[in-house]
């Protein structure tokens, strides 16, 4: 990070464009922590929603087909879709929490504020990744299990509850990600402009 007279200047585009980087660590180091933070928000939201959507279409296709011959399964098996939806909501909630941590940066920062911002930036990014990836896997898992649940229920009604238990275990995976993510951003605070 460049220091100019003991202060750090953000978003000096001309300076950044004319810099000659000599190593990748220098390049990565110059990425603004706010970029990291917002990317983390995007990843947590986007990956969770991709996982949830994937799960919903997998289970939805099977549900549609199976309910043609066995209409009684329609209402019960919407629970699988709701579980997938919950995965998307985890991602949404976490993204809102992350957005709350972001503050408008001051024009200049002292080195301690800079360190705080850098730490928070990385923290938010990787917390977003952990929530996003675990929800992605969770969504697909619940979707595949849900499709199996619909097909099994259409044949033998007694199997519905048993397969639902498998789905509940599957949806716990998303919760794990959410919990770890919240712990990760525990001490991530951005310096605000008012100070």
């Amino acid at each position, binding site marked *: 990070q460049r220091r100019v007279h003991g202060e750090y200047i953000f978003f000096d585009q001309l300076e950044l464009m004319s810099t000659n980087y000599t190593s990748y660590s220098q390049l990565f180091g110059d990425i603004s922590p706010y970029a990291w933070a917002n990317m983390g928000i995007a990843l947590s939201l986007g990956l969770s929603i991709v996982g949830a959507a*994937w799960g919903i*279409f*997998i289970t939805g*296709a*099977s*549900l*549609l*087909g*199976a*309910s*043609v*011959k*066995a209409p009684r399964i329609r209402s019960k098996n919407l629970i699988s879709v709701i579980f997938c939806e919950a995965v998307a909501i985890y991602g949404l909630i976490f993204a809102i929490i992350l957005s709350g941590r972001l503050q408008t940066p001051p024009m200049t920062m002292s080195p301690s504020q800079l360190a705080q911002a850098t730490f928070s930036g990385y923290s938010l990014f990787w917390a977003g990744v952990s929530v996003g990836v675990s929800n992605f896997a969770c969504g*697909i898992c619940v*979707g*595949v299990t849900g*499709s*199996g649940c*619909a*097909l099994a229920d*259409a*044949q033998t009604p007694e199997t519905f509850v048993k397969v639902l238990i498998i789905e509940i275990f599957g949806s716990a995976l998303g919760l794990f990600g959410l919990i770890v993510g919240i712990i990760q951003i525990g001490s991530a605070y951005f310096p605000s402009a008012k100070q």
Partner: protein
Amino acid sequence: SEMCIRDRYMGSKIKIIKFFVMDLTFFAINDGYVEAIIRGLRAGFLTPDVYEALKGTNSLQDFKTVLEDTDYGPYLGSEIQNVSISVLRSRLKRKLADEFSYIQGQCVEPLATFLRLMQSQYMIDNIVNIIEGVKNRVDFDYLISQADPLGVFPELKAIKSVDPENYSELYSTVLIDTPVGPYFMKFLENVMEALNENISINEIQALFRDIQPEFIRTSLKKMWLEDFYEFCQQMNPITKEFMEDILKFEADCKTIQVIYNSIGNKELSSAANRSSKRKQLCPSLGYLYPDVDKDIANVTTIEGLRDAVRHIQQYREMLRDVPDPLKREEFSADVRGLDDMMYEEEVRKYSLAFEEQAHYAVFYAYMKLKEQEIRNVIWLAEMVARKLPRSNKGWNKILIPFQP
């Protein structure tokens, strides 16, 4: 390759998806709905209770009443007092054909090609039957009504307009447009190849006229089987695994049946014809191919056949109790023939296909199991119509799928 069906399908965007594993996560994109439909239809199979009720009926009318309570109800309802077995059979087949035409309407590639290949075997049957029927001056409308509904396609009616004895013209005008056209082309090429170059056109026509329909049918089915196998190699791994096993077994059954049926037949098992004609009828795939090929080619007795398949336990057991075709007195209703053994093993394999999700073999298995069910029902209808006593062993000759 000459097999057009596979070439027509290749080169599409499915090639790209081939690099992903089309397993549980990707299967539902294109085929989730139709697979779920098939699984829902699985619930419509007749249970052992229904079979017991059918066995207990005294007349065909009661028989039909029992059937009306099952999934077949809507197809049997509007029948008049005297229901005949052929009408029953055609109604049951009609139901299966309707189910499959619905599924064909809902599916996309590559399942559409898979289903078309699946039904090609019935198309072959229909075409050969119609050609033979027209040759023997049978009424064309009657032939069309007797055609297997699973293998009906628009060009079938066009066979009427062509002289059935002129095979090459028949092929170039009518059959070339059909989905089974490539098989006919290959068949014609094979027959031409086996002839000398300096045979006149008239002799070729005479030769085609003399070819037995069974020979045509078996050759075409062999080509179809090989083409289907090639196609299944490109499918997702689960489909490939199941279909490989099923098709290999079917090919072996065909091989064994060809040899078995030709044991008593002097013409086919003579040394000259053994390598050419008989070989032509045996598919070049299966568990017996190519290791046992040479042994099988020289078989002339049932003992020789049993000896040739001794390495594979399944076939060894299957052939152990089968009656000798040379000794007609061994055949009776009690003895389980080769067909029965093969059906039983096939039913077991098809039932297993339903245990796995995200593959196409369920469609094939469903069709075959439904066919077996129709065979069961018609068999029981015949037993009921002839009023045979319950002690007759024929009552137990039915094969019920999904039995543990």
